[in-house]
């Protein structure tokens, strides 16, 4: 061992503040917290639904209020961030080869965004949002 070993000073808890690219990576990763929280909210809704009308309607009443609205706005922002960051890497995950050539990545990304818009509009229509 050399007399002056090289020690890299990298914090294991704050390393992602070193470069904007690391922060963008972490912003993508933390979307999972909000997806998970929303899954638990959906589970709660289904559980109360299974208990009958009174239980479900008290769940809907408890859902109303400024804190719920603020929380769901944050969840919505991270859900959209998950969607856009997920779709933007689809050319890497699903390259489409046609003969010798690869389909340009932008077509794959645009196709995902198009399906996303259509699915969103169909669900809004089905849910009765006018």
């Amino acid at each position, binding site marked *: 061992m050399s007399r002056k070993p090289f020690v890299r000073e990298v914090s294991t808890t704050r390393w992602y503040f070193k470069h904007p690219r690391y922060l963008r990576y972490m912003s993508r990763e933390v979307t999972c917290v909000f*997806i998970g929280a*929303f*899954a638990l909210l*959906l589970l709660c809704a289904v559980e109360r639904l299974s208990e009958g009308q009174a239980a479900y309607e008290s769940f809907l009443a408890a859902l109303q209020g400024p804190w719920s609205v603020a929380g769901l706005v944050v969840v919505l922002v991270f859900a959209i961030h*998950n969607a856009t960051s997920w779709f933007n890497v689809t050319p890497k995950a699903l390259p489409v080869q046609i003969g010798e050539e690869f389909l340009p990545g932008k077509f794959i990304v645009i196709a995902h965004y198009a399906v996303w818009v259509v*699915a969103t509009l169909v669900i809004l229509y089905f*849910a009765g*949002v006018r």
Partner: protein
Amino acid sequence: MAKSNKPIVWSLFAAGGTLAAFLAPVLVLLFLLAALGHAPALLGFANLHAFAAGWFGKLFLLVVITLFLWHAAHRLRITLHDFGLRQDGVVAPVLYVVAAVGTVLSVVSLVRI
């Protein structure tokens, strides 16, 4: 050859992430409208109960809840490591057990509807 659960949890992560990308924003929006006091017709008791009573509604809700849960559990496992929590031997079982319990609870609730 050593056996690994990675292909299983990774495929659940990828499937859940794709489903969340397409569906999570609009589903969150429906609940946001309900929180604002303008619950869409589908979230009314009679409509949602009728939806969840059919096989398609049951399957839809089951797939959405469980894949979102397993996606979040696997990604959070990696993210906690990135935040400096180097205890994968504890973190991974806890998160996967939460996802598994959520899966069982959603099946039980949906069967009762």
